[in-house]
């Protein structure tokens, strides 16, 4: 008679879910903010800068997702992404204000 | 695209043999340090020549794309065929290297 496999603790499952949400949602935020940053700061015409920003955004999404699963805790996943988002957001804000 | 294909395939075969484990499997003996280096250098040289040929034939844009396609194709072909017909792979590599000067002469 096979013994029932021990199922994973709820805390583990919560941590995984947390990281997934951070990666999916927070990753998108970081990617979008990075694309805006590139498009506002690149020394090119407006259309060229926007295209460049969009093309590069997915690399940032990739890095954000990797961070979310490589860092030691789920809290760090959120913390890291929020920190990066704040910095990018600040740069974006300043660049936007300066351009208008 | 025949010339780059011949050169890429030959190059991959040389690089394959430059690895001790594979050299033993295919030829029965471990390669000497000199032979290993020779095969490595030769293999890389053939790949670079293949790139040169592709660019000479089709220009930089198309040439780079075509070279990477030929590289992937010849690598895949060789690795999938090796477990089943190792001697054929080796023979084809020899033929490729021998035919490439002729292909170069007619195509370039």
């Amino acid at each position, binding site marked *: 008679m096979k013994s029932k496999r021990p199922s994973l603790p709820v805390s583990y499952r919560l*941590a*995984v879910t947390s*990281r997934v949400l951070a990666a999916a949602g927070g990753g998108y935020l970081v*990617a*979008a*903010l990075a*694309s*805006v940053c*590139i*498009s*506002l700061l690149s020394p*090119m*015409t*407006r*259309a*060229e*800068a*926007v*295209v*460049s*920003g*969009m*093309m590069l*955004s*997915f690399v940032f*999404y*990739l890095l954000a*997702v*990797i961070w979310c*699963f*490589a860092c030691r805790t789920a809290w760090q996943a959120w913390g890291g992404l929020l920190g990066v988002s704040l910095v990018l957001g600040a740069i*974006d804000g300043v660049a*936007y204000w300066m351009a208008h | *695209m025949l010339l780059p294909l011949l050169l890429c395939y030959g190059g991959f075969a040389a*690089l*394959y043999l430059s*690895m001790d484990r*594979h050299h033993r499997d295919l030829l029965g003996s471990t390669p000497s340090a000199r032979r290993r280096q020779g095969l490595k250098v030769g293999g890389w040289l053939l790949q670079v020549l293949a790139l040169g040929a592709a660019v000479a034939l089709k220009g930089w*844009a*198309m040439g780079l*794309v075509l070279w*990477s*396609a030929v*590289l*992937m*194709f010849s*690598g*895949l072909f*060789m*690795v*999938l065929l*090796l*477990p*089943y017909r190792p001697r054929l792979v080796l023979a084809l590599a020899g033929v490729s290297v021998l035919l490439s000067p002729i292909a170069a002469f007619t195509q370039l």
Partner: protein
Amino acid sequence: MKDGFRQSMAWLHTWLGLTFGWLLFAIFLTGTLAYFKDETSHWMQPEMSVRPLDPQASVTGAQAYLQKNAADASRWFISLPDAREPALSVMWQAAAKPGERGKFVEKLLDPQTGEEVQTRASSGGEFFYRFHFQLQMPHPWGRILATLAALVMFIGLITGIITHKKIFKDFFTFRPRKGQRSWLDGHNAVGVLVLPFHLMITYSSLIIFMSLVMPASIIASYGKDTQTFFKEVFPASDTATPTGQPGHLLPLAPFLEQARQHWTDGRVGRLTVNNPADVNSSINVFRDGADKIAHDFGSAVSFNGTTGQLLGVTPEQPLPMAIGGSFYGLHMGHFAGPMWRWVYFIFGLASTALIGTGLVIWLGKRALKHVNGVLPFELRLVQVLNIASMSGLVVAVAVFFWANRLLPLGLAERADWEVKSFFIAWGLGLLHAVLRPGRKAWVEQLGLAALLFAAVPLLNALTTPYHLANSLAQGDWVMAGFDLTCLGSGLFLAWAAWKMQRSGHAVASTQKQRAAPISLKQELN
């Protein structure tokens, strides 16, 4: 997640691969089939015969048709026939209220007669093409999901590279006939050796829909005025505002030659006419995309439709647009002639196999712990989804072709019924996978697919006069090639079914062998 960077990336690779693998397999298989969409359409609408190419006659015929049927449209689109696509395609966008998007209507014309083509109604190869990025879902949800899947594929590829410890040492390693080890070798080999293609196809698909999924930078730089962005990126799609005054559109054919003078070489691919009935009409002549790799979206020569005056030639693309265009062009492979199209097809199958082997390995590794064959619910679910999404999909593709030959020609909404047959077959495949034990389901579905594909040439011969004997005699290589490729696929699938059945017997016999020594030991004791 575990400690260690590589281990956490391996965990991520494994779980992303599983959750999105079924969808990605479908996207990659149908996308691969789409490289031969014109050839598939030719087989599925064989009544459309190939004519010698005459661009001038084609444009004149198209103009006459559009003048009769779409005189008050806001835009006309004319795609000239080429070596792969024998029909003349016309499309028009109906005039719409400001702010609304006018409806598009598309028709195929016979380039010689200028009349609508009289073939059986079918989506042809276009079905696979559209499915692989729209997923049969309403706009824009299918594209968003497909692009999300592409992002997951990208992360899967990168985490796979990070995880593969001996990527250089094992570069040439492939050891078949060794069970799970061989599946992993195959997955790694196909992954590493064709890696540039996998990365190119995946990243380019992100770029293709980037404006849809990542519009933040457009909004930040252009605010509400997103139309200006698109006009700057695609200058020739600029629809000049209609004045409301009727105008007479000049004959279009002479503009082909005038446009070509601005290009060092090259053919005309298509024309668009903005506001054809208005005095402020404009004619844009676009180069054939097959002329070079980088797709130049906006590049056209523009003329005033009423006076014939040259309005402009779009300047050379700036670098970022050229890079984006290169990704687009590499993904589409418009430049690819017959040989390169086969190379694209083989590499596409390699990407599909990468995903498929991954799914098999995921289950195989965990199923090993359940030697008596009874899988817990979650593994059984994975097994059913594996079977349905892989062999089930292949059966559905075959059924799509069979439906094309068997459905009555006069059936209403025939094209829709062909597509419905595809999905019904796929659904039945899922049901079959639920009802049958795992290995048997694989063998039966692969066997059915083998039968259906191998019998395509026979089916073709029994239902149409365009069978192999005729197509080979007339030199219609596309028709013959399609029949023969189906036959070849059938043979491959039959081999796969046979291997699957044999490995089932091997497992059973090793289990018997394992039981024997144990009882012998017991006797000795």
